[in-house]
């Protein structure tokens, strides 16, 4: 109160001095019309330049000689095997990372243990390390000069320059996606629901299936989609470990580069367009999920 009283005279004097320059009321969190237009135009121009233009270029290049030529390029034996390898890698890497991501998020969000901060950082490692380095690490681990490589080879298992190497590299690069998506969600939800289920006699598995999993299903799907998008599009790490054996260890992104380097532009862009199409489908699915997810969330109160 004493402070208020002391402030009053000076505040009055200030407002009197500025009386001529009183500004009309405006929504305090909004901008004036010219500023709005400028900001929106800037954003739109930027989006057009870095997103829509390249996407348009990919499709227009692919269709430069007509749809038939593009389809023919995709129907090529090497291209088809690249598509099937890409899908195979995704089909292996995504479920693996789904299981790993759920397990890691479960451990980090629901339990206290020593080294938790370290584990969290470790999960982020593939995000911060360049994919090329990730690939080189596998060369060191499984290459001819390593300990593991010759041992595995003597058992008839070829890792490098073969499908297992491609899968391993992809798993490494994509493994944070699911865990990263789930950790904040599960931390927010806490352990109350699980304790309730256990107190009602549910076993650990029952609690997971009937309580934890339904609680995280939207976040999990979202993480899986992101993981899938990255698994199909990964170039750097795969490029290092694959050996680029045509029709054997070449995935779609590698196939695009090979075709491009051979000046076979139509084929390169046709495969690129197909890859972009897969990514777009993923994004549309993601957008749909987000809508459902946010609707679910809007109904959920803070606790």
């Amino acid at each position: 109160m004493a402070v208020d009283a002391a402030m009053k005279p000076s505040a009055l004097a200030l407002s009197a001095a500025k009386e001529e320059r009183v500004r009309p009321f405006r929504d305090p969190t909004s901008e004036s019309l010219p500023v709005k237009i400028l900001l929106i135009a800037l954003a739109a121009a930027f989006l057009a330049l870095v997103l829509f233009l390249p996407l348009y270029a990919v499709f227009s290049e692919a269709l430069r000689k007509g749809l038939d030529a593009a389809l023919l390029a995709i129907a090529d034996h090497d291209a088809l095997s690249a598509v099937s390898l890409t899908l195979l890698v995704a089909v292996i890497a995504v479920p693996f990372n789904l299981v790993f991501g759920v397990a890691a998020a479960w451990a980090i969000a629901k339990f206290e243990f020593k080294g938790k901060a370290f584990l969290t950082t470790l999960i982020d490692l593939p995000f911060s390390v360049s994919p090329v380095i990730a690939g080189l690490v596998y060369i060191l681990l499984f290459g001819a000069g390593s300990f593991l490589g010759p041992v595995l080879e003597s058992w008839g298992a070829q890792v490098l320059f073969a499908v297992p190497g491609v899968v391993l590299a992809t798993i490494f690069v994509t493994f944070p996606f699911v865990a990263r998506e789930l950790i904040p969600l599960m931390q927010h939800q806490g352990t109350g629901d699980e304790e309730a289920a256990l107190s009602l006699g549910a076993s650990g598995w029952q609690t997971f299936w009937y309580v934890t999993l339904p609680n995280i299903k939207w976040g999990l799907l979202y993480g899986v989609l992101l993981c899938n998008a990255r698994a199909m599009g990964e170039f750097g790490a795969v490029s290092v470990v694959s050996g680029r054996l045509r029709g054997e260890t070449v995935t779609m992104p590698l196939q695009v580069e090979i075709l491009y380097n051979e000046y076979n532009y139509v084929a390169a862009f046709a495969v690129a367009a197909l890859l972009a199409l897969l990514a777009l489908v993923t994004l549309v699915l993601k957008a749909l999920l987000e809508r459902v997810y946010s609707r679910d969330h809007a109904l959920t109160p803070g606790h």
Partner: protein
Amino acid sequence: MELRVANVRKEFERFPALNDVSLDIRSGELIALLGPSGSGKTTLLRLIAGLERPSAGSIFFGDEDASHKSVQDRNIGFVFQHYALFRHMTVLDNITFGLRIRKSSRRPEKAEIRRRALELLDLVQLSGLEKRYPTQLSGGQRQRVALARAMAVEPNVLLLDEPFGALDAQVRKELRRWLRDIHDRTGHTTVFVTHDQEEALELADRVVVMSKGNIEQVGTADEIYDKPVSPFVFGFIGQSSHLKVRIENGEVWFHDRVIGIKASDLPDGPATLYFRPHDIELTDGCSGCIAGLVTVSRRIAGTWHTEVDVGAGHEKIEVSLNADQSAALKGGRIAFRPRHYRIFPTN
């Protein structure tokens, strides 16, 4: 079912939450664990439930040592402060969850499960809402669903953690009476945690007052209020005033005068006098009383809350006067003597 907590200790990473606590709970009793936050009341409840493992000591369900049994095997009903309802399940599915997940040998028939759930819904006065989702219910309704869910498994003991803590005052009062009513009808042994003394005193058969990981006193509402055994209980339950005094030869001294209270069974030395601010008699002269200048007097409804400056050290002490006694305030100086009091020697 009878419960017995025997010499239980609990530490969280070296930090003691409960020190050597023992408690007997009779079958069918409604018990309140009352204390400020950090007193260990929720820890004790979670230990009984099996959601925590004691660092030492045992917990008996009947004659059986349940200390090493998992929460699933103890067959308890636990009601959480924030309900912890399964948000993707309907009210009916929430209530039947505990029965549906049982092994087929112990699981009742589908129709029987449904019948039992609807009966419980009726008991918690939510008939007709079985198809709703938790998000479509009010806080009070959710808590009642949580209680029905806990009772559906026919638990040995019902444990409630601050069951009304997240609700507003009006709903709290209603649910309180309603819980008492349900308890009287079903007869479950029930333990609930609260920091609200009114809730504990009104609802419970016996109240367990806890502080800093210890049980201070166990007793009925009357015992706790009328015969508090420690300064903490006296100060925590209801209004209280206290005054630093000295005991000499069975007489209570305040500075250089006796205040007209005998303490023949207490040893000589410093002590603290506790009394209820309203439980005093005004005296005229002052041969054996507490006297002082009135510094502030605020009237709240029919009571005058009065602060009195007593003695040389300017100690402030609060008394409550009723309408008849308030006339004494005019003089600016009052003299009084507590009618009922407790004196605790200062260690």
